[in-house]
């Protein structure tokens, strides 16, 4: 079984977010996403975004990592941020990293190998969500096939079921959800 194999980094972190009554609430997130959406033309913002993504107490670090990816591709900083997020002790942080990776992989299938790390997660919900994130990519997620095959023998029935569905999609037997009209 795949469960409990992946070592989880024993690291306690204090998470800080912009105060909801403060001037930064919501704005920070949207500016980071806007810079990512601009893409390579926003290269001036890279030092600031790197600073954002390297700050372990910043809850928007995964959004900053996505923005960096969109501006200059998968740099070591981005990979380290997601790697740290997916190995975090806090399940919600792992889910947050997975959610951003899931969004990213629809646009950039090269992000799929990073997302595969979540399939080794000790929590069945994270593993299930990782497999579910792969399914809409269809044949673009072919790199995940070997890993998804292993999850067909997972301890959790919901993960096994999702893995079967994902395999169908990867092999082109199901219409990818992301491309549905």
């Amino acid at each position, binding site marked *: 079984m795949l469960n409990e194999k992946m070592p989880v980094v024993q690291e306690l972190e204090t998470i800080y977010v912009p105060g909801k009554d403060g001037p930064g609430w919501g704005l920070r997130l949207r500016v980071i996403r806007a*810079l990512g959406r601009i893409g390579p033309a*926003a290269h001036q913002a890279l030092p600031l975004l790197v600073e954002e993504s390297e700050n372990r107490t910043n809850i928007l670090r995964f959004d900053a990592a996505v923005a960096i990816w969109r501006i200059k591709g998968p740099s070591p900083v981005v990979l380290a941020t997601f790697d740290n997020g997916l190995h975090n002790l806090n399940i919600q942080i792992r889910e947050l990293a997975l959610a951003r990776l899931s969004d990213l992989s629809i646009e950039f299938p090269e992000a799929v190998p990073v997302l595969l790390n979540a399939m080794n997660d000790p929590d069945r919900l*994270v593993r299930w969500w990782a497999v579910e994130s792969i399914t809409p990519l269809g044949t673009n997620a072919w790199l995940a096939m070997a890993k998804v095959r292993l999850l067909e023998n997972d301890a959790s029935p919901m993960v096994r079921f999702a893995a079967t569905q994902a395999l169908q999609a990867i092999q082109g037997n199901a219409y990818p959800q992301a491309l549905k009209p």
Partner: protein
Amino acid sequence: MRVVEHDQDFWVVNEAIVALGAIGPPAQPALPQLLNLLTNQSKVWLSHRAAWALVGIDPKNSMVASFLVNALAVPWARSTYENISPADFEEPISTAGHYERWVLIRALGRVQPQTPETMAVLYRELEHGEYGSQATAAVVLGGLHPVTSETVTKLIEALRRSGDERLPADPVPAWMSPPWISPSCWTKGHAK
């Protein structure tokens, strides 16, 4: 079009305007009715919806661009019509909310081509608007094509400015991890 012109139900007209905007350029025959609504000072809410629909149908219409610039030139959208007494408003709802301003900002972002006047309004909202307007302006600026280096600089400044106040949260606030996104919330409850 008949609904927009003749229907007496406010919400039906509202939905019809939004639907015309969603149709896009093929809804060109509705332009006269929508432009008429734009200048109707007693129907502020519907005029904002008409502006939204018009930029969907004809983004190059200079009348819409100038309407949006003027509407956003004052702190509150309704202040544009402050010469009208509240009793003269024909609408059942308040049109003075933040949300109205966000609709106008988003509509301005769809105007083509962006002129120095429209860009100045967007930059002003990003720098001096209330925080929802700032966030909306950031989203709009991020979606413009082509993007100038000035836009990137303004966004970078906004990012630097937005980091002034931070409060600890334990561990992920509900708004970052709502139950419909996060599987662990389905079984373990919300982070309070």
